[in-house]
Protein backbone atom coordinates (compact mmCIF):
# COMPACT_ATOMS: atom_id res chain seq x y z
CA UNK A 1 0.00 0.00 0.00
CA UNK A 2 1.21 3.48 -0.85
CA UNK A 3 1.22 5.96 2.04
CA UNK A 4 -1.84 8.16 2.49
CA UNK A 5 -3.30 10.46 5.07
CA UNK A 6 -6.64 9.89 6.76
CA UNK A 7 -9.25 12.02 8.47
CA UNK A 8 -12.95 11.80 9.20
CA UNK A 9 -15.21 14.43 7.61
CA UNK A 10 -17.60 16.60 9.62
CA UNK A 11 -20.17 17.45 6.97
CA UNK A 12 -20.94 16.89 3.31
CA UNK A 13 -19.63 20.29 2.23
CA UNK A 14 -16.31 19.65 3.93
CA UNK A 15 -16.16 16.18 2.41
CA UNK A 16 -16.72 17.55 -1.08
CA UNK A 17 -13.98 20.15 -0.63
CA UNK A 18 -11.55 17.44 0.46
CA UNK A 19 -12.47 15.30 -2.53
CA UNK A 20 -11.92 18.18 -4.94
CA UNK A 21 -8.46 18.61 -3.38
CA UNK A 22 -7.66 14.97 -4.19
CA UNK A 23 -9.04 12.86 -1.35
CA UNK A 24 -11.00 9.67 -1.94
CA UNK A 25 -13.90 8.64 0.26
CA UNK A 26 -14.04 5.60 2.46
CA UNK A 27 -17.26 4.26 4.01
CA UNK A 28 -17.34 0.56 5.00
CA UNK A 29 -13.92 0.17 3.42
CA UNK A 30 -14.59 -3.32 2.08
CA UNK A 31 -13.86 -2.50 -1.55
CA UNK A 32 -11.42 0.35 -0.83
CA UNK A 33 -9.19 -1.89 1.32
CA UNK A 34 -9.06 -4.52 -1.43
CA UNK A 35 -8.18 -1.85 -4.00
CA UNK A 36 -5.48 -0.47 -1.69
CA UNK A 37 -4.04 -3.89 -0.82
CA UNK A 38 -3.67 -4.70 -4.53
CA UNK A 39 -2.34 -1.25 -5.43
CA UNK A 40 -5.23 -0.60 -7.82
CA UNK A 41 -5.79 2.84 -6.33
CA UNK A 42 -3.28 5.14 -4.71
CA UNK A 43 -5.16 7.94 -2.96
CA UNK A 44 -3.14 10.69 -1.30
CA UNK A 45 -5.83 11.03 1.33
CA UNK A 46 -8.81 9.04 2.60
CA UNK A 47 -11.81 11.02 3.84
CA UNK A 48 -13.98 8.92 6.16
CA UNK A 49 -17.70 9.51 5.52
CA UNK A 50 -18.96 7.58 8.56
CA UNK A 51 -19.60 10.72 10.61
CA UNK A 52 -22.17 12.06 8.13
CA UNK A 53 -25.16 10.44 9.85
CA UNK A 54 -26.51 8.89 6.67
CA UNK A 55 -27.49 5.48 8.06
CA UNK A 56 -31.01 4.15 8.46
CA UNK A 57 -34.15 3.26 6.52
CA UNK A 58 -37.22 5.46 6.82
CA UNK A 59 -40.65 5.67 5.27
CA UNK A 60 -41.44 8.98 3.62
CA UNK A 61 -44.82 10.66 3.82
CA UNK A 62 -45.95 9.35 0.42
CA UNK A 63 -44.96 5.79 1.31
CA UNK A 64 -41.58 5.78 -0.47
CA UNK A 65 -38.66 4.15 1.34
CA UNK A 66 -35.48 6.12 1.86
CA UNK A 67 -32.32 4.11 2.45
CA UNK A 68 -29.42 6.13 3.86
CA UNK A 69 -26.16 5.67 1.96
CA UNK A 70 -24.25 4.60 5.06
CA UNK A 71 -26.73 1.89 6.07
CA UNK A 72 -24.85 -1.42 6.41
CA UNK A 73 -25.90 -4.20 4.05
CA UNK A 74 -26.88 -6.53 6.91
CA UNK A 75 -28.96 -3.84 8.62
CA UNK A 76 -30.84 -3.23 5.39
CA UNK A 77 -31.29 -6.96 4.72
CA UNK A 78 -32.85 -7.33 8.18
CA UNK A 79 -35.02 -4.21 7.97
CA UNK A 80 -38.70 -5.19 8.46
CA UNK A 81 -40.02 -2.49 6.10
CA UNK A 82 -37.66 -3.46 3.30
CA UNK A 83 -38.30 -7.17 3.73
CA UNK A 84 -42.05 -6.71 3.70
CA UNK A 85 -42.38 -4.16 0.89
CA UNK A 86 -39.31 -4.62 -1.29
CA UNK A 87 -38.42 -8.29 -0.93
CA UNK A 88 -36.21 -8.27 -4.01
CA UNK A 89 -33.84 -5.76 -2.37
CA UNK A 90 -33.71 -7.56 0.98
CA UNK A 91 -33.10 -10.88 -0.79
CA UNK A 92 -30.34 -9.40 -2.98
CA UNK A 93 -28.63 -7.98 0.10
CA UNK A 94 -28.91 -11.21 2.10
CA UNK A 95 -27.27 -13.02 -0.86
CA UNK A 96 -24.37 -10.52 -1.03
CA UNK A 97 -20.89 -11.31 0.29
CA UNK A 98 -20.51 -12.87 3.77
CA UNK A 99 -22.06 -11.91 7.12
CA UNK A 100 -18.78 -10.23 8.12
CA UNK A 101 -18.62 -8.12 4.96
CA UNK A 102 -22.34 -7.30 5.23
CA UNK A 103 -21.78 -5.92 8.74
CA UNK A 104 -19.16 -3.50 7.35
CA UNK A 105 -20.21 -2.63 3.80
CA UNK A 106 -22.55 0.27 3.05
CA UNK A 107 -25.32 0.64 0.46
CA UNK A 108 -23.66 3.67 -1.15
CA UNK A 109 -20.35 1.85 -1.43
CA UNK A 110 -22.12 -1.14 -2.95
CA UNK A 111 -23.37 0.95 -5.89
CA UNK A 112 -19.74 1.92 -6.52
CA UNK A 113 -18.09 -1.50 -6.15
CA UNK A 114 -15.48 -1.91 -8.86
CA UNK A 115 -15.56 -4.87 -11.23
CA UNK A 116 -14.29 -8.30 -10.23
CA UNK A 117 -12.74 -8.83 -13.70
CA UNK A 118 -9.57 -10.84 -13.00
CA UNK A 119 -7.42 -8.55 -15.09
CA UNK A 120 -8.73 -5.35 -13.54
CA UNK A 121 -7.69 -6.73 -10.15
CA UNK A 122 -4.21 -7.79 -11.36
CA UNK A 123 -1.88 -4.83 -11.98
CA UNK A 124 0.54 -6.97 -14.01
CA UNK A 125 -1.91 -7.32 -16.94
CA UNK A 126 -3.24 -4.87 -19.55
CA UNK A 127 -6.70 -3.49 -18.72
CA UNK A 128 -8.40 -0.50 -20.33
CA UNK A 129 -10.48 0.18 -17.25
CA UNK A 130 -7.50 0.34 -14.91
CA UNK A 131 -5.08 1.84 -17.41
CA UNK A 132 -6.87 3.42 -20.38
CA UNK A 133 -5.38 2.44 -23.73
CA UNK A 134 -3.45 -0.57 -22.42
CA UNK A 135 -5.84 -3.10 -23.99
CA UNK A 136 -8.43 -5.54 -22.69
CA UNK A 137 -7.00 -8.87 -21.53
CA UNK A 138 -10.43 -10.43 -21.06
CA UNK A 139 -11.58 -10.29 -24.71
CA UNK A 140 -9.36 -13.21 -25.71
CA UNK A 141 -8.42 -14.35 -22.19
CA UNK A 142 -10.16 -15.85 -19.17
CA UNK A 143 -13.64 -14.36 -19.59
CA UNK A 144 -15.85 -16.86 -17.83
CA UNK A 145 -17.04 -14.13 -15.44
CA UNK A 146 -17.31 -11.35 -18.02
CA UNK A 147 -20.31 -9.71 -19.63
CA UNK A 148 -22.38 -10.91 -22.58
CA UNK A 149 -24.50 -7.73 -22.63
CA UNK A 150 -23.49 -4.08 -22.79
CA UNK A 151 -19.84 -4.70 -23.60
CA UNK A 152 -17.64 -2.91 -26.12
CA UNK A 153 -14.45 -3.79 -27.95
CA UNK A 154 -12.66 -1.97 -25.11
CA UNK A 155 -14.18 -3.66 -22.05
CA UNK A 156 -16.57 -6.48 -21.13
CA UNK A 157 -16.37 -6.16 -17.35
CA UNK A 158 -19.42 -6.99 -15.24
CA UNK A 159 -20.73 -4.51 -12.67
CA UNK A 160 -20.77 -7.08 -9.83
CA UNK A 161 -23.16 -5.68 -7.21
CA UNK A 162 -26.44 -7.41 -6.41
CA UNK A 163 -28.35 -4.50 -4.85
CA UNK A 164 -28.49 -2.20 -7.90
CA UNK A 165 -30.05 -5.01 -9.97
CA UNK A 166 -32.88 -5.20 -7.44
CA UNK A 167 -33.10 -1.39 -7.38
CA UNK A 168 -33.57 -1.23 -11.15
CA UNK A 169 -36.51 -3.64 -10.82
CA UNK A 170 -37.90 -1.38 -8.09
CA UNK A 171 -37.62 1.77 -10.22
CA UNK A 172 -35.40 3.31 -7.52
CA UNK A 173 -33.37 6.53 -7.59
CA UNK A 174 -30.07 7.63 -6.07
CA UNK A 175 -29.80 10.98 -4.28
CA UNK A 176 -26.46 12.61 -5.02
CA UNK A 177 -25.07 15.79 -3.49
CA UNK A 178 -22.82 17.67 -5.88
CA UNK A 179 -19.64 19.46 -4.91
CA UNK A 180 -21.49 22.80 -4.93
CA UNK A 181 -24.08 21.47 -2.47
CA UNK A 182 -26.91 20.96 -4.99
CA UNK A 183 -28.79 17.68 -4.70
CA UNK A 184 -30.00 15.68 -7.69
CA UNK A 185 -31.89 12.43 -8.21
CA UNK A 186 -30.61 9.89 -10.70
CA UNK A 187 -32.54 6.71 -11.60
CA UNK A 188 -30.49 3.65 -10.63
CA UNK A 189 -31.07 2.48 -14.20
CA UNK A 190 -29.06 5.48 -15.44
CA UNK A 191 -26.45 5.54 -12.66
CA UNK A 192 -23.90 3.16 -14.21
CA UNK A 193 -22.49 3.85 -17.67
CA UNK A 194 -21.77 1.56 -20.57
CA UNK A 195 -18.03 1.10 -21.13
CA UNK A 196 -17.99 2.30 -24.75
CA UNK A 197 -14.50 3.63 -25.44
CA UNK A 198 -14.11 5.05 -21.90
CA UNK A 199 -14.42 2.00 -19.62
CA UNK A 200 -12.60 3.90 -16.87
CA UNK A 201 -15.74 6.06 -16.43
CA UNK A 202 -18.19 3.77 -14.66
CA UNK A 203 -20.98 5.93 -13.27
CA UNK A 204 -22.49 9.42 -13.53
CA UNK A 205 -20.65 10.45 -10.34
CA UNK A 206 -18.64 13.68 -10.70
CA UNK A 207 -15.65 14.77 -8.58
CA UNK A 208 -16.83 15.72 -5.09
CA UNK A 209 -20.22 13.98 -5.49
CA UNK A 210 -21.52 12.16 -2.43
CA UNK A 211 -24.28 9.57 -2.45
CA UNK A 212 -26.72 10.54 0.29
CA UNK A 213 -29.53 8.02 -0.11
CA UNK A 214 -31.48 5.62 -2.28
CA UNK A 215 -35.22 6.07 -2.73
CA UNK A 216 -37.67 3.34 -3.64
CA UNK A 217 -40.88 5.03 -4.87
CA UNK A 218 -44.19 4.33 -3.15
CA UNK A 219 -45.71 2.50 -6.13
CA UNK A 220 -42.87 -0.05 -6.14
CA UNK A 221 -43.31 -0.78 -2.43
CA UNK A 222 -46.75 -2.23 -3.32
CA UNK A 223 -45.35 -4.63 -5.91
CA UNK A 224 -44.43 -8.23 -5.22
CA UNK A 225 -40.78 -8.89 -5.95
CA UNK A 226 -38.10 -11.55 -5.88
CA UNK A 227 -34.36 -12.08 -6.49
CA UNK A 228 -32.66 -15.22 -7.82
CA UNK A 229 -28.86 -15.47 -7.85
CA UNK A 230 -26.89 -18.19 -9.65
CA UNK A 231 -23.30 -18.67 -8.48
CA UNK A 232 -20.46 -21.20 -8.45
CA UNK A 233 -21.18 -22.26 -4.88
CA UNK A 234 -24.33 -22.09 -2.78
CA UNK A 235 -23.22 -19.04 -0.82
CA UNK A 236 -20.55 -16.31 -0.58
CA UNK A 237 -19.83 -15.72 -4.25
CA UNK A 238 -20.47 -12.98 -6.78
CA UNK A 239 -23.27 -13.70 -9.23
CA UNK A 240 -22.61 -15.57 -12.45
CA UNK A 241 -26.10 -14.41 -13.27
CA UNK A 242 -28.98 -12.97 -11.28
CA UNK A 243 -32.54 -11.88 -11.95
CA UNK A 244 -34.65 -9.31 -10.14
CA UNK A 245 -38.38 -9.20 -10.80
CA UNK A 246 -41.01 -6.81 -9.45
CA UNK A 247 -44.64 -6.90 -10.54
CA UNK A 248 -48.23 -6.04 -9.84
CA UNK A 249 -51.12 -8.21 -10.99
CA UNK A 250 -54.59 -6.76 -11.59
CA UNK A 251 -57.78 -8.22 -10.12
CA UNK A 252 -58.01 -10.75 -12.94
CA UNK A 253 -54.48 -11.95 -12.29
CA UNK A 254 -53.01 -10.26 -15.37
CA UNK A 255 -49.63 -8.52 -15.24
CA UNK A 256 -50.42 -4.82 -14.78
CA UNK A 257 -46.91 -3.61 -14.05
CA UNK A 258 -43.61 -5.44 -14.35
CA UNK A 259 -39.92 -4.65 -14.21
CA UNK A 260 -37.23 -7.26 -14.78
CA UNK A 261 -33.46 -6.74 -14.44
CA UNK A 262 -30.43 -8.99 -14.69
CA UNK A 263 -27.04 -8.95 -12.97
CA UNK A 264 -23.77 -10.81 -13.40
CA UNK A 265 -24.14 -10.86 -17.17
CA UNK A 266 -23.87 -7.21 -18.16
CA UNK A 267 -21.61 -4.20 -17.84
CA UNK A 268 -24.32 -2.49 -15.77
CA UNK A 269 -27.54 -3.64 -14.11
CA UNK A 270 -29.48 -4.72 -17.18
CA UNK A 271 -33.15 -3.95 -17.63
CA UNK A 272 -34.97 -6.61 -19.68
CA UNK A 273 -37.69 -4.56 -21.34
CA UNK A 274 -38.48 -7.09 -24.03
CA UNK A 275 -39.22 -9.74 -21.41
CA UNK A 276 -41.48 -7.24 -19.63
CA UNK A 277 -43.37 -6.45 -22.88
CA UNK A 278 -43.98 -10.12 -23.59
CA UNK A 279 -45.74 -10.54 -20.24
CA UNK A 280 -47.56 -7.23 -19.69
CA UNK A 281 -51.33 -7.67 -19.88
CA UNK A 282 -51.16 -11.46 -19.67
CA UNK A 283 -51.77 -14.03 -16.98
CA UNK A 284 -48.59 -15.80 -15.92
CA UNK A 285 -48.41 -19.39 -17.05
CA UNK A 286 -45.39 -21.60 -17.47
CA UNK A 287 -45.27 -21.60 -21.25
CA UNK A 288 -45.69 -17.87 -21.59
CA UNK A 289 -43.01 -17.22 -18.96
CA UNK A 290 -40.59 -19.64 -20.61
CA UNK A 291 -41.08 -18.07 -24.03
CA UNK A 292 -40.78 -14.54 -22.63
CA UNK A 293 -37.57 -15.41 -20.77
CA UNK A 294 -35.92 -16.48 -24.03
CA UNK A 295 -35.81 -12.76 -24.90
CA UNK A 296 -33.57 -12.10 -21.89
CA UNK A 297 -30.41 -12.80 -23.86
CA UNK A 298 -31.48 -10.74 -26.89
CA UNK A 299 -28.41 -8.95 -28.27
CA UNK A 300 -25.93 -11.02 -26.26
CA UNK A 301 -22.36 -11.21 -27.57
CA UNK A 302 -20.75 -14.34 -26.20
CA UNK A 303 -17.18 -15.66 -26.14
CA UNK A 304 -16.01 -19.22 -25.56
CA UNK A 305 -15.55 -18.63 -21.83
CA UNK A 306 -18.90 -16.99 -21.14
CA UNK A 307 -21.27 -18.46 -23.77
CA UNK A 308 -22.90 -20.49 -20.97
CA UNK A 309 -24.32 -17.25 -19.59
CA UNK A 310 -26.90 -16.83 -22.38
CA UNK A 311 -28.95 -19.93 -21.49
CA UNK A 312 -28.19 -19.41 -17.80
CA UNK A 313 -29.69 -15.92 -18.06
CA UNK A 314 -32.86 -17.20 -19.73
CA UNK A 315 -33.35 -19.88 -17.10
CA UNK A 316 -32.58 -17.58 -14.17
CA UNK A 317 -35.14 -15.04 -15.40
CA UNK A 318 -37.68 -17.80 -16.01
CA UNK A 319 -37.15 -19.21 -12.54
CA UNK A 320 -37.42 -15.82 -10.83
CA UNK A 321 -40.75 -15.06 -12.54
CA UNK A 322 -42.15 -18.56 -11.95
CA UNK A 323 -41.17 -18.47 -8.27
CA UNK A 324 -42.68 -15.02 -7.83
CA UNK A 325 -45.86 -16.09 -9.60
CA UNK A 326 -46.17 -19.21 -7.44
CA UNK A 327 -45.67 -21.44 -10.50
CA UNK A 328 -42.31 -22.99 -9.66
Amino acid at each position, binding site marked *: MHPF*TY*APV*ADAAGAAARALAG*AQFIAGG*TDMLQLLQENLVQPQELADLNGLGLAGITEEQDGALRLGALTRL*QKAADDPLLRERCAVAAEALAASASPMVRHMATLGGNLLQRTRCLYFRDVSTPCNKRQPGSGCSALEGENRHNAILGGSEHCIAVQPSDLPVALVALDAEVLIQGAGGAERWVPVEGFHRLPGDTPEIETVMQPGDIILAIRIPAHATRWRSHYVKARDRASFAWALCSAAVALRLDEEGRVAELRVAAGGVATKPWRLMRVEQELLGHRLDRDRVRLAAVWASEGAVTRPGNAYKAPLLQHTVERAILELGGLA
Partner: protein
Amino acid sequence: MPEPSQNFSLTLHVNGTEHRVAVDARTTLLDALRDRLHLTGTKKGCALGQCGACTVLLDGRRVVSCLMLAVMAEGRQVTTIEGLAQGDDLHPVQAAFVEHDAFQCGYCTPGQIMSAVGAIREGRAGSDDEIREQMSGNLCRCGAYTNIVAAVRDAASREG
Protein backbone atom coordinates in the same frame (compact mmCIF):
# COMPACT_ATOMS: atom_id res chain seq x y z
CA MET B 1 -12.26 18.07 12.83
CA PRO B 2 -8.69 16.78 12.90
CA GLU B 3 -6.40 17.53 9.98
CA PRO B 4 -5.59 14.60 7.69
CA SER B 5 -2.59 12.80 9.09
CA GLN B 6 -0.39 9.85 8.28
CA ASN B 7 0.51 8.82 11.81
CA PHE B 8 -1.86 8.18 14.67
CA SER B 9 -1.64 7.40 18.32
CA LEU B 10 -4.83 5.45 18.99
CA THR B 11 -6.71 4.00 21.89
CA LEU B 12 -8.04 0.58 20.94
CA HIS B 13 -10.46 -1.28 23.21
CA VAL B 14 -9.61 -4.94 22.82
CA ASN B 15 -11.09 -7.70 24.98
CA GLY B 16 -12.07 -5.19 27.63
CA THR B 17 -8.65 -3.58 27.89
CA GLU B 18 -7.53 -0.18 26.58
CA HIS B 19 -4.35 -0.20 24.52
CA ARG B 20 -2.40 2.79 23.24
CA VAL B 21 -0.92 2.05 19.84
CA ALA B 22 0.99 4.09 17.30
CA VAL B 23 -0.07 3.25 13.76
CA ASP B 24 0.30 4.45 10.21
CA ALA B 25 -2.97 5.39 8.48
CA ARG B 26 -2.48 2.30 6.30
CA THR B 27 -2.38 -0.16 9.20
CA THR B 28 -5.31 -2.57 9.16
CA LEU B 29 -7.03 -3.59 12.36
CA LEU B 30 -5.68 -7.09 11.70
CA ASP B 31 -2.06 -5.91 11.55
CA ALA B 32 -2.52 -3.70 14.60
CA LEU B 33 -3.84 -6.67 16.59
CA ARG B 34 -1.12 -9.06 15.46
CA ASP B 35 1.97 -6.91 15.08
CA ARG B 36 1.42 -4.13 17.65
CA LEU B 37 -0.66 -5.79 20.35
CA HIS B 38 0.84 -9.25 19.71
CA LEU B 39 -2.60 -10.83 19.77
CA THR B 40 -1.68 -13.39 17.14
CA GLY B 41 -4.74 -15.61 17.62
CA THR B 42 -6.44 -13.65 14.85
CA LYS B 43 -5.03 -15.07 11.60
CA LYS B 44 -4.18 -13.52 8.26
CA GLY B 45 -5.20 -15.63 5.27
CA CYS B 46 -6.08 -13.65 2.15
CA ALA B 47 -6.08 -10.04 3.44
CA LEU B 48 -8.93 -9.45 0.97
CA GLY B 49 -12.03 -10.34 2.98
CA GLN B 50 -12.40 -13.66 1.21
CA CYS B 51 -11.39 -16.31 3.78
CA GLY B 52 -12.65 -15.22 7.22
CA ALA B 53 -9.44 -16.18 9.10
CA CYS B 54 -9.23 -12.66 10.54
CA THR B 55 -12.81 -12.51 11.89
CA VAL B 56 -13.25 -10.52 15.12
CA LEU B 57 -16.25 -8.94 16.80
CA LEU B 58 -16.61 -5.17 16.53
CA ASP B 59 -19.20 -3.84 18.99
CA GLY B 60 -20.49 -7.42 19.12
CA ARG B 61 -20.81 -7.94 15.35
CA ARG B 62 -18.66 -10.12 13.12
CA VAL B 63 -16.28 -8.26 10.80
CA VAL B 64 -13.16 -9.14 8.81
CA SER B 65 -10.32 -7.20 10.45
CA CYS B 66 -8.21 -7.25 7.26
CA LEU B 67 -10.63 -4.87 5.51
CA MET B 68 -10.72 -2.33 8.30
CA LEU B 69 -8.26 0.45 8.99
CA ALA B 70 -7.10 0.49 12.61
CA VAL B 71 -7.82 4.23 12.81
CA MET B 72 -11.45 3.51 12.00
CA ALA B 73 -11.70 1.07 14.95
CA GLU B 74 -10.92 3.74 17.55
CA GLY B 75 -13.62 4.00 20.17
CA ARG B 76 -15.19 0.66 19.21
CA GLN B 77 -15.13 -2.55 21.27
CA VAL B 78 -13.03 -5.27 19.63
CA THR B 79 -13.26 -8.91 20.75
CA THR B 80 -10.69 -11.42 19.52
CA ILE B 81 -10.31 -15.14 20.10
CA GLU B 82 -8.06 -14.32 23.09
CA GLY B 83 -11.02 -12.59 24.75
CA LEU B 84 -13.44 -15.52 24.79
CA ALA B 85 -12.22 -17.84 27.58
CA GLN B 86 -12.69 -16.89 31.23
CA GLY B 87 -9.34 -17.89 32.71
CA ASP B 88 -9.06 -21.63 32.11
CA ASP B 89 -12.74 -22.00 31.26
CA LEU B 90 -13.24 -22.22 27.53
CA HIS B 91 -16.10 -20.34 25.90
CA PRO B 92 -18.92 -22.81 25.01
CA VAL B 93 -18.14 -22.45 21.29
CA GLN B 94 -14.45 -23.18 21.92
CA ALA B 95 -15.38 -26.21 24.02
CA ALA B 96 -17.74 -27.45 21.30
CA PHE B 97 -14.99 -27.16 18.66
CA VAL B 98 -12.68 -29.29 20.82
CA GLU B 99 -15.41 -31.81 21.59
CA HIS B 100 -16.44 -32.20 17.95
CA ASP B 101 -12.92 -32.22 16.55
CA ALA B 102 -13.93 -29.28 14.36
CA PHE B 103 -10.45 -28.56 12.95
CA GLN B 104 -7.34 -30.15 11.53
CA CYS B 105 -4.47 -27.67 11.07
CA GLY B 106 -6.33 -25.06 13.12
CA TYR B 107 -5.45 -22.05 10.98
CA CYS B 108 -9.04 -21.10 10.18
CA THR B 109 -10.28 -22.01 13.66
CA PRO B 110 -10.08 -18.66 15.50
CA GLY B 111 -12.03 -17.06 12.65
CA GLN B 112 -14.53 -19.92 12.58
CA ILE B 113 -15.09 -19.63 16.32
CA MET B 114 -15.50 -15.83 16.26
CA SER B 115 -17.94 -16.13 13.36
CA ALA B 116 -19.89 -18.84 15.19
CA VAL B 117 -20.04 -16.73 18.36
CA GLY B 118 -21.40 -13.86 16.25
CA ALA B 119 -23.92 -16.04 14.41
CA ILE B 120 -25.26 -17.52 17.65
CA ARG B 121 -25.48 -14.09 19.24
CA GLU B 122 -27.36 -12.78 16.20
CA GLY B 123 -29.81 -15.68 16.53
CA ARG B 124 -28.82 -17.07 13.15
CA ALA B 125 -27.75 -20.62 14.02
CA GLY B 126 -31.17 -22.25 14.19
CA SER B 127 -30.71 -25.11 11.71
CA ASP B 128 -27.87 -26.86 9.88
CA ASP B 129 -28.80 -25.03 6.67
CA GLU B 130 -28.74 -21.69 8.44
CA ILE B 131 -25.41 -22.52 10.07
CA ARG B 132 -23.90 -23.46 6.70
CA GLU B 133 -25.14 -20.23 5.15
CA GLN B 134 -24.01 -18.13 8.11
CA MET B 135 -20.56 -19.74 8.26
CA SER B 136 -19.97 -19.49 4.49
CA GLY B 137 -17.61 -16.52 4.87
CA ASN B 138 -15.16 -18.73 6.79
CA LEU B 139 -13.24 -21.07 4.53
CA CYS B 140 -11.45 -24.18 5.79
CA ARG B 141 -8.70 -25.54 3.56
CA CYS B 142 -8.69 -28.77 5.57
CA GLY B 143 -12.39 -29.31 4.88
CA ALA B 144 -13.47 -29.70 8.49
CA TYR B 145 -16.89 -28.33 7.58
CA THR B 146 -18.99 -31.28 8.74
CA ASN B 147 -17.61 -31.13 12.26
CA ILE B 148 -17.72 -27.33 12.31
CA VAL B 149 -21.48 -27.42 11.63
CA ALA B 150 -21.89 -30.05 14.38
CA ALA B 151 -19.91 -27.92 16.86
CA VAL B 152 -21.86 -24.75 16.07
CA ARG B 153 -25.19 -26.58 16.30
CA ASP B 154 -24.20 -28.05 19.66
CA ALA B 155 -22.96 -24.74 21.07
CA ALA B 156 -26.07 -22.94 19.79
CA SER B 157 -28.42 -25.43 21.43
CA ARG B 158 -26.54 -25.20 24.73
CA GLU B 159 -26.46 -21.40 24.73
CA GLY B 160 -29.87 -20.87 23.23
